[in-house]
């Protein structure tokens, strides 16, 4: 076995190990969410959505941070690998943002008696979802010769949306909004709630980074295949 084959085998072993760790973490988090914590006193079982909703939101912010880091690194070095990472993070970020929006709606319907409420936190997160969508559309339909640089610029501008989402809760007084500030106001008083929240968030962040890695690897392989086929044609 030559050196390249050895490296490939070692890399695949690491990937399987990472997959196993992420799967175990997710299973442990699921056990805590559905079995480990008791029902919340006021909201009942539907409150368990909270762990996925907030955890996915934090994982989504990690995707934006990856898009920002990848975009800045690409603009500084012009290395294609950073563009691939940024593209992967944008796609995974859109998935997590969709999970946040949908889980929020499912939670809001029985608790607030509405699917959506026009207030700063929900609106700004909807903007973030649309920004992810626009990043993907620019890559698909933008100027094909300059796509990586253009997407990197948009990635940097798009990252401004996250501080807006975080800050948005302070734009109106708490009594004028339905969206609660559970974590910010230390609403998780039971130890089991805090532990379930921590482990679910950690598991979702790991899952997000694993998905970004897998998507980036697929993107990188497809670029290599394209380059090889172009070389073959020449």
């Amino acid at each position, binding site marked *: 076995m030559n050196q390249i084959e050895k490296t490939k085998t070692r890399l695949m072993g690491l990937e399987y190990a990472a997959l196993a760790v992420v799967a175990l973490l997710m299973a442990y988090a699921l056990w805590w969410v559905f079995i480990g914590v008791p029902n919340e006193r006021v909201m009942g079982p539907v409150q368990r959505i909270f762990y996925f909703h907030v955890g996915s939101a934090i994982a989504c912010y990690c995707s934006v941070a990856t898009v920002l880091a990848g975009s800045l690194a690409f603009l500084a070095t012009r290395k294609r690998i950073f563009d691939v990472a940024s593209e992967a993070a944008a796609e995974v970020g859109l998935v997590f943002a969709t999970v946040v929006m949908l889980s929020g709606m499912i939670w809001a319907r029985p608790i607030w008696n509405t699917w959506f409420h026009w207030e700063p936190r929900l*609106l700004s997160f909807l903007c973030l979802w*649309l920004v992810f969508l626009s990043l993907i559309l620019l890559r698909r339909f933008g100027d094909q*010769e300059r796509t990586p640089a253009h997407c*990197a610029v948009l990635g*940097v*501008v798009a990252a*401004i*949306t996250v501080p*807006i989402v975080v800050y948005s809760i*302070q734009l109106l007084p708490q009594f004028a909004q339905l969206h609660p500030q559970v974590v910010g106001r230390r609403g998780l008083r039971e130890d089991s709630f805090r532990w379930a929240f921590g482990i679910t968030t950690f598991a979702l962040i790991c899952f997000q980074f694993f998905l970004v890695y897998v998507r980036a690897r697929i993107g990188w392989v497809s670029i290599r295949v394209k380059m090889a086929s172009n070389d073959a044609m020449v």
Partner: protein
Amino acid sequence: MRRAVGQFLSVFLSMGALELRVRETLAVMLSLAIIIAVVVAFGVTTVFLDPAGREKLFPAAIWICFILNAAVSLGRSFEYETEHRLLDGLLLAGVAPASIFISKALVNFVVLSVAHLTGVVALGMLLGVSIAAQSTDFIIISVLVVLAYSALATLVAALTTGSRLRNALLPIILLPLVLPLFFCGVELTTQLALGESFSLGGAWGQMLIGLAVLYVGLGALLFESVVRE
């Protein structure tokens, strides 16, 4: 420093002169400002017949008109420059990309301000609502929103210029990014219209100032990466 200012002034004046000569964006914007104002006013008067309802809706209506008009009209923002390779010429002449960006953003700012003023006057006349009493505060809000919008729209217009779908892609990319500006504009104008105490030191005002500074700064920094590839 003097050379940079001189460069910026000559690029700004030549781009402004080009806009005045071609008049494409300005003509489209002024026409759209009036058309959108008529459509919005028609919808509002059909639903809200009482003057109090119209007054409450007026701040949102003027910013809806502005955002829609600007998003549609600025699609042609870099078209003339790209067709005639003006940007390449300026870059080859050694003009700093930040100077080109600020010049273009300022030209767009002037054009958008004229269109915004037209839209506000048209809507005010059609709905029978006036904010003349708070005109100074309204001008401050408008300048900040239009400035931030112009900077961001100039950057995004440059991103979409080379695309086949540029006219559709520009609003799709631009609108989610400018929605926070729209919220700031509507909230601050509503405070004015309802006679509440108005201050740029409040949460909405701080956010508006922050976004204006960020968009102008980021645009000037990132424009080089958009045009020099």
